[in-house]
């Protein structure tokens, strides 16, 4: 199958990652900190242009915020975009600083054709980042179509060639000096260039130009190094204005959690630990580790859990940027869920045909853990329990509360014993009951526990006192205790 390339161009990628108030002009300066590289609409309206020096820009627009453009962070942003695009194709190549190649020839059948993939991608792209697409059989051609904003969901070779031949030398992104040289021989567009003999072009303008032209026309392969998604999750939110209260972090955190949720779903994973790294202006970074009782992957649940967790934290200082990290993952469906239903569930998830997760889980007899998680997140200390029944004659061991971090074990319970519904945490001493209140004439003797040192030797009675049915015992020292109540 011949490859088909889709190029994703993210204009002003770094600029759009900043949370900027609508009317605040902002310009990002290039590596030498002198010239504007990216700027937003308010700055553009004030007359600032790309490549303008910082001094000129600031005098044109007094309220302008100038920030250096961080190449490393821009590269990370591009990698985040690649992670996002991973849902459309597994073959992705980064084209720094702000572009991606996706091989989609093999994916068209899955997505129902080029037109539908194109529309879906535009629809699902985060609105925060504008995106320009181009598609062609040659990688460089797709790139040029995207960057010059003339791409259409049309893979017709004839049409593509027509579009490409109309591109000017500037649109081809050639060197300015090279542009000048070519203009001197009367070449204005790519169409003019390809009509010239290649050998002559190589001699006069260098082999690089010929190489470039051949790649655009698809006569030569573009070398590609495939992007491999790392199994760790990192995403950032930068704030132009510092955030002073932890609830102010929830809003920027929402898209990060949405990204995390889709990252987890694509890999059939879930997580139980989120790490938030909060950067401050004058203090070392704060790290918040948010752990949950059960692994989770759903966006809404994650958001609710984070919100509850935040109630236990206070910000030590205003925050300038936030990073969400996840390093440890678990299977989305643990072993116990992998019944027949669990398998179906897998496929439904994969194909995106699943209804709501909850109904599927219910059908397979698996309880939803989200309630447990939410309770755990809100309650500060260990206050959640399961009930554990044990095959032991001693009542305080036969029925216990079990910490919710552990799983209850099945036990064989002896039937036919008369036992109360309530068991007191510790037996309460009581005066000897009046004979009239005792119900069972024949007491039940429990004498056990010689093997582990907690020996009990008790006679149990039922006593009805002013409407309360008590389970009381007399121990070897003739003392009376209430241990349970028949609720």
């Amino acid at each position, binding site marked *: 199958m011949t490859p088909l390339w889709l190029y994703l161009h993210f204009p002003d990628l770094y600029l759009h990652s900043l949370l900027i108030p609508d009317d605040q002009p902002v310009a990002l300066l290039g590596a030498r900190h002198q010239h504007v590289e990216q700027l937003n609409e308010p700055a553009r309206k004030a007359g600032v242009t790309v490549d303008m020096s910082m001094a000129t820009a600031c005098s044109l627009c007094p309220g302008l915020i100038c920030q250096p453009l961080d190449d490393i962070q821009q590269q990370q942003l591009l990698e985040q975009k690649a992670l996002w695009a991973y849902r459309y194709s597994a073959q992705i190549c980064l084209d720094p600083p702000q572009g991606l190649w996706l091989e989609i020839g093999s994916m068209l059948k899955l997505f129902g054709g080029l037109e539908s993939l194109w529309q879906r991608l535009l629809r699902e792209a985060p609105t925060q980042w504008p995106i320009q697409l181009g598609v062609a059989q040659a990688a460089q051609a797709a790139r040029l179509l995207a960057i010059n904003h003339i791409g259409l969901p049309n893979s017709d070779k004839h049409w593509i060639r027509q579009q490409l031949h109309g591109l000017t030398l500037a649109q081809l992104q050639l060197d300015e000096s090279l542009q000048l040289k070519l203009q001197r021989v009367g070449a204005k567009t790519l169409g003019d260039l390809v009509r010239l003999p290649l050998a002559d072009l190589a001699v006069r303008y260098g082999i690089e130009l010929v190489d470039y032209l051949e790649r655009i026309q698809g006569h030569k392969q573009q070398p590609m190094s495939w992007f491999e998604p790392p199994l760790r999750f990192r995403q950032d939110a930068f704030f132009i204005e510092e955030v002073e209260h932890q609830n102010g972090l929830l809003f920027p955190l929402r898209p990060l959690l949405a990204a995390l949720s889709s990252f987890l779903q694509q890999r059939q994973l879930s997580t139980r630990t989120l790490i938030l790294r909060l950067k401050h202006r004058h203090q070392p970074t704060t790290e918040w580790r948010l752990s949950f009782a059960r692994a989770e992957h759903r966006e809404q649940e994650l958001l609710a859990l984070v919100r509850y967790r935040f109630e236990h934290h206070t910000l030590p200082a205003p925050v300038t940027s936030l990073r969400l990290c996840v390093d440890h993952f678990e299977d989305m469906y643990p072993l116990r869920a992998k019944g027949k239903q669990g398998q179906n569930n897998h496929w439904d998830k994969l194909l995106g045909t699943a209804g709501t997760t909850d109904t599927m889980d219910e059908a397979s007899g698996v309880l939803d853990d989200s309630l447990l998680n939410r309770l755990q997140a809100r309650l500060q200390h260990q206050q959640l*329990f399961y009930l554990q029944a044990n095959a032991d004659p001693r009542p305080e061991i036969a029925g216990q509360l079990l910490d919710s971090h552990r799983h209850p074990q099945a036990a064989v319970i002896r039937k036919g014993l008369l036992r109360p519904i309530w068991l007191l945490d510790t037996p309460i001493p009581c005066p000897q009951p009046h004979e009239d209140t005792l119900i069972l004439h024949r007491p039940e003797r429990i004498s056990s526990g010689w093997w582990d040192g907690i020996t009990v030797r008790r006679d149990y009675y039922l006593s009805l006192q002013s409407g309360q*049915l008590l389970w009381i015992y007399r121990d070897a020292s003739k003392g009376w205790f209430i241990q349970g109540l028949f609720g």
Partner: protein
Amino acid sequence: MLPESRSHTANDPASHSVLDQVLDRGDVWQARRQPEFARKQVSSGFPELDAQLPGGGWQAGQLCEIYQQGLGTGELSLILPALAKLSQQPRWILWVAPPAIPYAPTLSQAGVNLKHILVVRPKSYKEAIWCLEEGLRSGHCSAVLGWLGEWHKQHIRRLQIAAADADSHCWVWPQTGFDASGSPAALRLGVQRLSARQLQVQCFKRRGSWPGKDFIVDITQASGTPMPANDRFPAHKAVRLPSVARLGSAN
């Protein structure tokens, strides 16, 4: 009568439709039109109790308050067979702030699936209310049980609304005095023990009906093991709940 129905004569067909509309809205309660119980309900397991409960069983989406004087008066036995049935659903049964440890072997013997039981011991009344509401709102609970150290009408209203929205069963045992000024709960019962086998149940309020007379429920088989007979305990020793409590039945 509502004002708009007055303006029409009885013969006017339009007046019928307006009246019907008003009646259909359910704002006006009519004795001859018993509410339809299309909601999920579960039999209490006691014929005497089912006969008194509206719709013939515990209704999902209706908050039930059970009053008792002290623990061990049979307050939990009343719902034990229903709990056993509900625990077969793959959903949680949440116990919030139980006054003692729910004894696992007894519940297991009564047919309750222990795997579906979750016990919360919150530190305060506020946390307890939050847990109850969260349990109801999550939609992952077949029943929510709560023991309340305080009683506030607005909280009971919130719980009643949450239970109705989630269509979930909810029982609460207020550990406070009986507030006779009325409650938003759909059902209010008082229970006291006559003997090991018999409970006397008072109904203070039931939605869609009059409170009705006190009745006796036989709980001999409730916990799976027969309760012993108690001929020696004199029935007249049973303490009645204060009669002022009955005033609450009007709302």
